[in-house]
């Protein structure tokens, strides 16, 4: 290499670096930035960031995706309402055919019309095995989607599946964009285009999602013109930024939400949820697999004390996946905290007090390990409270923490402090949680519970459209869980939000366990109205 070539190479490299740097430093802008009026922009802090913004990969599958609409949507009371469909679907008598008539005159935010082809494309792509969608089992009942005419789509199911309509809140993607690129890695996954009330202007990963109102939204242009969701994983940092005025609203844990109680101009909202915390009882473990131990633990835990002590009252005792205030709850399945009775059950089953107050049976100590997700303070406190209650009944629970990578290989024999809950339909969480066919399948049925009575009730209830029969089915499940607990359910947790009182009549939906972008008072930010 000569000196000259080195110099020119260096010059080229320098020029290249500078051009590269200039390109890298340019940030997309569309001139809508900057705070205009106080009420036409909102910035909220959330804790979870979506992995992808493509509905084909699972984004917004439970609705409220902002950027997209589903065929149906949920209102404040979690009742289904038509969205991209013109009305609720017509269901055939055998419960296997759902016919949707589509809304007229809807366009995607790029101006192209929404058609039946987009619906067929969306569902077919999700079910395609090359699509990396981790939630496709939720559409297990779906056999095929058919376009009957430009405005009619028919879903054919493999078996009658009562809650199928609840699944059709999942967002519809535009075929003319998403269909032309790789479904898993294409630019659509980060630069989505939909029919929804908002248009994504920027996604700065790990930092924030910025939206602007879709002026042509079929439901009317939103009053909040600029909407930003800041992703702030740390609770304390989120609270601080809310206090400093950087945020207009945020989700907060009970102890931090309490510090805003007397704050001027701030409103606190508490969302009812299906979000439970429970302890898995692996059947393969000699201690937790013993029915007497399960029954004893179920009444030895002091749920009320957990709600008061851990949740500062922001929650309810949980006796099963269904919260006590849900219409699906089986009255009379509330457990009373009764340590004496718990000890009696253990005595009768042959678990006798040994050294140090730990019971034994056939030389086997009543002791098992309980894992919780490291860094999750709420789960840690639940796990410790559970262990201390169990200790009083003579059962030793060794609490240990770790990441899921460490917990997963031990789930077959060790207990786990788990969480879940899905409000839209009891089938959604209970089938995954309790059906024996899913024992040990991924993170489903972690207890590996196998109860033929429960299995039958679960299947019957998902295959009939008769509301009374379904309710009876889920009541059977809940009563069976009293006799033979699959998990020890501890609490249902309220989700707390603090928002500036610049908007009127804010509401919350009943929320699921995963409460990211779609939950909170901003579930319907497109409908927010200025307070003055």
């Amino acid at each position, binding site marked *: *290499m000569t*000196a000259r070539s*080195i110099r020119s190479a260096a010059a080229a490299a320098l020029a290249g670096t500078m051009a*590269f*740097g200039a*390109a*890298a*430093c340019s*940030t997309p*802008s*569309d*001139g*809508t*930035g*900057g*705070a205009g009026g106080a009420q036409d*922009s909102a*910035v909220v802090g959330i804790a*979870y960031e*979506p*992995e*992808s913004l493509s509905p084909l990969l*699972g984004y917004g*599958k439970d609705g409220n995706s902002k950027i997209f609409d589903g065929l149906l949507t949920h209102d404040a009371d979690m009742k289904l309402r038509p969205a991209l469909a013109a009305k609720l679907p017509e269901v055939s008598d055998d419960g296997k055919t759902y016919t949707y008539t589509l809304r007229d005159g809807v366009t995607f935010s790029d101006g192209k019309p929404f058609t039946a082809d987009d619906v067929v494309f969306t569902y077919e792509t999700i079910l395609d*095995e*090359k699509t*990396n*969608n*981790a*939630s*496709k*089992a939720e559409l297990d009942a779906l056999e095929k989607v058919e376009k009957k005419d430009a405005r009619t789509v028919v879903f054919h199911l493999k078996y009658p599946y009562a809650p199928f309509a609840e699944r059709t809140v999942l967002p519809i993607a535009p075929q003319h964009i998403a269909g032309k690129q790789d479904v*898993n*890695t294409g630019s659509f*996954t980060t630069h989505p285009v939909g029919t929804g009330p908002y248009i994504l202007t920027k996604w*700065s*990963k*790990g*930092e*924030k999602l*910025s939206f602007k109102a879709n002026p042509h939204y079929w439901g009317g242009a939103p009053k909040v013109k*600029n909407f*930003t969701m*800041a992703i702030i994983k740390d609770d304390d*940092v989120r609270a*601080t*930024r809310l206090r*400093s005025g*950087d945020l207009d609203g945020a989700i907060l844990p009970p102890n931090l939400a309490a510090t805003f109680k007397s704050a001027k101009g701030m409103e606190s909202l508490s969302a009812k949820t299906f979000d439970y915390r429970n302890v898995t009882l692996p059947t393969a473990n000699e201690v937790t697999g013993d029915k007497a131990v399960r029954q004893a633990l179920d009444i030895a835990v002091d749920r009320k004390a957990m709600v008061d002590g851990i949740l500062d009252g922001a929650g309810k005792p949980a006796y099963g996946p269904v919260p006590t205030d849900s219409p699906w709850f089986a009255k009379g399945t509330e457990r009373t905290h009764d340590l004496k009775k718990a000890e009696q059950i253990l005595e009768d089953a042959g678990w006798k007090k040994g050294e140090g107050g730990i019971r034994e049976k056939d030389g086997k100590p009543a002791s098992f390990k309980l894992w919780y997700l490291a860094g999750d303070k709420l789960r840690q406190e639940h796990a410790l409270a559970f262990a201390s209650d169990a200790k009083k009944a003579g059962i030793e629970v060794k609490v240990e923490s770790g990441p*899921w*990578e*460490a917990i997963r290989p031990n789930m077959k024999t060790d207990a786990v402090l788990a969480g*879940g809950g899905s409000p839209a339909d009891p089938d959604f969480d209970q089938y995954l949680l309790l059906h024996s066919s*899913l024992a040990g*399948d*991924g*993170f*489903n049925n972690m207890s590996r519970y196998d109860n033929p009575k429960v299995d039958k009730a679960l299947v019957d209830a998902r295959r009939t459209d008769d509301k009374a029969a379904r309710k009876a089915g889920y009541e059977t499940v809940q009563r069976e869980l009293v006799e033979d607990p699959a998990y020890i359910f501890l609490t249902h947790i309220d989700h707390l939000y603090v928002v500036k009182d610049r908007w009127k009549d804010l509401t919350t939906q009943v929320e699921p366990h*995963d409460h*990211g972008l779609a939950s909170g008072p901003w579930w319907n930010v497109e409908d927010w109205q200025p307070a003055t």
Partner: protein
Amino acid sequence: MSRLAQLPWGPMARMTGRRALLAVPVLLAVTLGVFAVAAAAPFDPVKAYAGTAGLTASQENLDQIRHNLGVDQPLLGRWWHWLTGALTGDLGDSATLRAPVSQVIGERIGWSVLLCALAFVLAIIVGTLLGVLAARRRGSLLDRAVTSAAYTLEAAPPFWLGLLAVWLFALKLGVLPAGGLTDTGSEVATAGQIARHVVLPALVLAVSQLPWFVLYVRQGVGDALEEDPVRGARARGLSERTVLLQHALRSGLLPVLTLIGSRVPELITGALLVETVFSWPGIAAATVQAATSVDFPLLAALTVLATAAVLVGNLLSDLLYGLADPRVGFDG
């Protein structure tokens, strides 16, 4: 121009060429090592990919994704696949960030370079200044203050300094933003906003690098002040200013040149922590994410980048040293 032409371009080019050749096996070994370590780690790429949905997904579903992502392939196969792709300019797709690796790096590297360059320049300038001041009067109050402060800072981890700075400037005084590239509610990255947001992270990173420069300069210049040429210059009655700047500084700064090269890896690790604390959208956040989710293509590309930065840093300091001290030459 004439002075440029006098430089020993030939030997310098030969040294660069030799180093470039040597870099090839180093880079190969490093990428293979990264693949092996990541494969042995307990992190599950499919779990990271699926996120919360993975907690309710069926095993069949997860297995299908594992196959689609190609992470069920044996280690060597995946590495070879990545290598051949990379050589043809295709760095692959990042599974966690759901975008081509080249795009991920392109969007982020500018911000990291901005942060590191600012911090490095600041550390060198302030470090040299403080080092020279301390060296002029060894044992003085200033010297003792600077030296003990430098030792303290050397022991302080950058993330701790970062949290301290956030607490002081953002929470207590409220004068600077606590994190991010721009204000939360704003979509446009104006120069003014970025300037305000870069102050704290750059300052913290600079402070974490500062002690090394202070101590090296102090030592080098201090020693040089006691050498014969300096004594001779003083004897000839030259002004203290000339003695310090023309004689002592010139030989005293030689060790600092080596330091610049060897500090590059430290700068990269420091940036990793500082970017995380300040939610700076550079490549550090991506690196952490790539590592914990076993995102091979992204991880490998970032490792190559970091290795290259270290190699270039070393080469640069050797070249500078050779220029400053002809006795060393360009053969090393």
